[in-house]
């Protein structure tokens, strides 16, 4: 961490969100339109902020900022390269999960604060979903950290110098991916923001202007953060032949982003009851099993 780290992080967040937005365009329509994206930003900036007639002002106006802070905090824990490790702390992966945990109150504040029936439904859906998926995220993190015997993300990257964790613990990756996609409310797990089902943007329906822009920005930073952490924890992070370290990390992160966006178009939106049933009946027991297996793997192969 240096004096430049916060600025580097913000630069990474904004430029990364831009690239994610371009990938979204590519996934949705098959063509890139950076100019259109810039115009959308312009519209958001120039549009006035508004609010529903009946609403909770504090919750409503704080939610976008909280979401943005949570997303940037999560992004800060991602190790990008040996020379740029974000905020490299001993308990990084736990802090990452903790940052993601703040997405839940942000979504709830937005939905509840808007005081609109379908936004409230979206808010409650998200809380129910996150109650189910917070545990798998935390436990899978532990399982992945076991071989490195450290919760420091860079240490977990280093332990994968020979074999990426996705090959050692594929079951952990299978539990991790849907859970982090749900946190970032990506289709088909976008039940809190379900377009059409809950109006335009569900819990975030009523934001206009810069607040709507912050929500859109935060969502993409969140996607970047979970994709980056997936690359770091499971795909070997910056390890790879020929290319520079940072390039490998960028390629892997964008590949994960693309995989998540692609999956969102391939499947109809999941239903809340099925997602909850899966979380409690499969994901949570599966995550406990993953910890046990990770312990055995560590004892057998990493010592």
């Amino acid at each position: 961490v240096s004096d430049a780290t916060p600025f580097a992080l913000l630069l990474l967040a904004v430029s990364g969100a831009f690239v994610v937005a371009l990938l979204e365009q590519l996934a949705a329509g098959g063509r890139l339109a950076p100019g259109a994206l810039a115009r959308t930003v312009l519209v958001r900036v120039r549009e006035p902020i508004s609010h529903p007639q009946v609403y909770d002002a504090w919750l409503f106006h704080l939610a976008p900022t909280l979401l943005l802070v949570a997303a940037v905090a999560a992004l800060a824990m991602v190790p990008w390269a040996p020379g740029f490790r974000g905020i490299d702390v001993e308990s990084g992966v736990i802090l990452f999960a903790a940052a993601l945990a703040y997405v839940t109150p942000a979504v709830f504040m937005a939905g509840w604060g808007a005081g609109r029936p379908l936004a409230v439904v979206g808010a409650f859906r998200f809380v129910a979903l996150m109650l189910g998926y917070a545990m798998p995220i935390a436990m899978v993190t532990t399982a992945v950290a076991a071989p490195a015997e450290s919760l420091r993300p860079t240490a977990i990257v280093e332990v994968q110098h020979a074999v990426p964790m996705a090959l050692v613990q594929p079951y952990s990756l299978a539990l991790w991916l849907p859970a982090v996609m749900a946190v970032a409310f990506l289709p088909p797990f976008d039940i809190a923001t379900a377009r059409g089902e809950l109006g335009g943007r569900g819990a975030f329906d009523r934001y206009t202007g810069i607040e709507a822009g912050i929500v859109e920005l935060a969502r993409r930073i969140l996607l970047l953060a979970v994709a980056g952490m997936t690359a770091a924890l499971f795909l070997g992070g910056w390890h790879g032949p020929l290319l520079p370290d940072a390039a490998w990390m960028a390629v892997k992160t964008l590949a994960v982003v693309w995989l998540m966006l692609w999956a969102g178009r391939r499947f109809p939106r999941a239903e809340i009851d099925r997602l909850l049933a899966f979380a409690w009946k499969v994901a949570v027991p599966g995550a406990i099993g993953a910890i046990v297996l990770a312990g055995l793997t560590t004892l057998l192969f990493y010592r």
Partner: protein
Amino acid sequence: VVLTRSSRATLPALLVPDELSWTLWGQDPALGGLAPASAEEARVLLAPARVPSPLVAALREEWQRAGGGARVEARDAPVAGGVALAEALEIGGGHAHGGGHDEHAGHGGHGGHAGHDEHAGHGGHGGHDEHAGHGGHDHHAMMAIVGEPSADGLVMEPIAFTLGPLSGVLPGGLAVDVELDGDVVSACTVRALLRAGPAEHGQLAPPDPLAPVTWTTALRVAEELERGDVAEPAVQWLRLAAVEVERAVSHLAWLRSLGRLLGWGELVRVAQEALGPLLALHRPRAPRDSQDGAPSLSPHTADAPLAEARRAAERVVRLVAGRRFAGRTLDRGRLAGHPGLVGPNARAAGDVEDRRRADALYAALGFAAAEHGDGDVRARALVRVFEVREALRLAAEALARADVAAPDAQGVPAFADQDGVAVEGPRGPVRIRRPANAHHPDLEAPGSAAALEAAGRAAVGQEWASALVTLASFDLSPWRVGT
């Protein structure tokens, strides 16, 4: 915010009355890059130059919320008895941009363009007050604390709100009064708010703009029956082809909306690929313009688009019959029996009734009605995609026969029976009873009220997402026909 035409693809648009109506009137918004959005996120309002009166209050509300920041684009589109757009929005004529003037200059007779003063005096004012009470938007609904124990014994706060009439997910003009118990629907009533206005310029408009070709054909045949004429065989085959193309367009556009509701990009894309080539053939305005009452379908130019659509329709069938679709639709919104239902909704519940079975022309083509016994959302979708496949086959064969003027239809008036005229449209039969009076015919769309009622009933007891998919699965029309 006024943006150039090229950039609007990036903007979410509120389509008034709805995407399905635009598509069925031959202007598919998706081809121009416009994706329908809910009123909350819309940056562009695409509205017909005249708006059905019951939508005026809701539309004005959206316009005011946009605070003048949104752009209005007016086009020549379906309305039957409405209020001029500029008047409805209480804006000066200069603010509404007539985006479609040039390309539709030839259709000047169908109604005014936005902002033209000549329409300021037209009827429809009555609609303002009578519908103001509907509210129509859920943000008005406050949460009432009643404290009734729900089915699972928990004391819940029921949430009551109205979805529509400009909801973005259901056709514009449908208002759904919902009461949620938690996220489960405990009460649901669907109202159809729209009704066609009286004949204009002596020309009776289709009373349901969601089935324009079907109704135009029925009105034509009724006129001919009254005069004692029988159309040329080639004309009859062309009409059959046009009705079948409309069925395919309607079902595919409905499926595309369902895909949007399900958040399923692949279904939207696949439905769009089948829909695209058909839009070149589907010209709802043409039958009125042509001299001999024949739809302006040409057997020679229709071959390639029909073949392309048939190939794409096979992909649609595979996707809808597959497991991913079943996961969201199997066993949802199942009805016991099919009381009063008609059309695909009834055929999805095991009813074999189809007007086309009794028609000599259809029999000559070897028509087979699609059926399914399950009566759930999946069955309704499957019946429709099978009907798309059959409709495209029928259209291709009818066009081939029109080309050689096959004599099968000689002397047999298609679409007529002893009671008058009956055409099986996309949502069931449309009827015109004898004695047909050219200016005040007795028009009927039996089963539409039953569909509204059945949809509301089927939604009760389901989680909101499934309830909404169930409502959409009935392909309801907001237009009331008959008494």
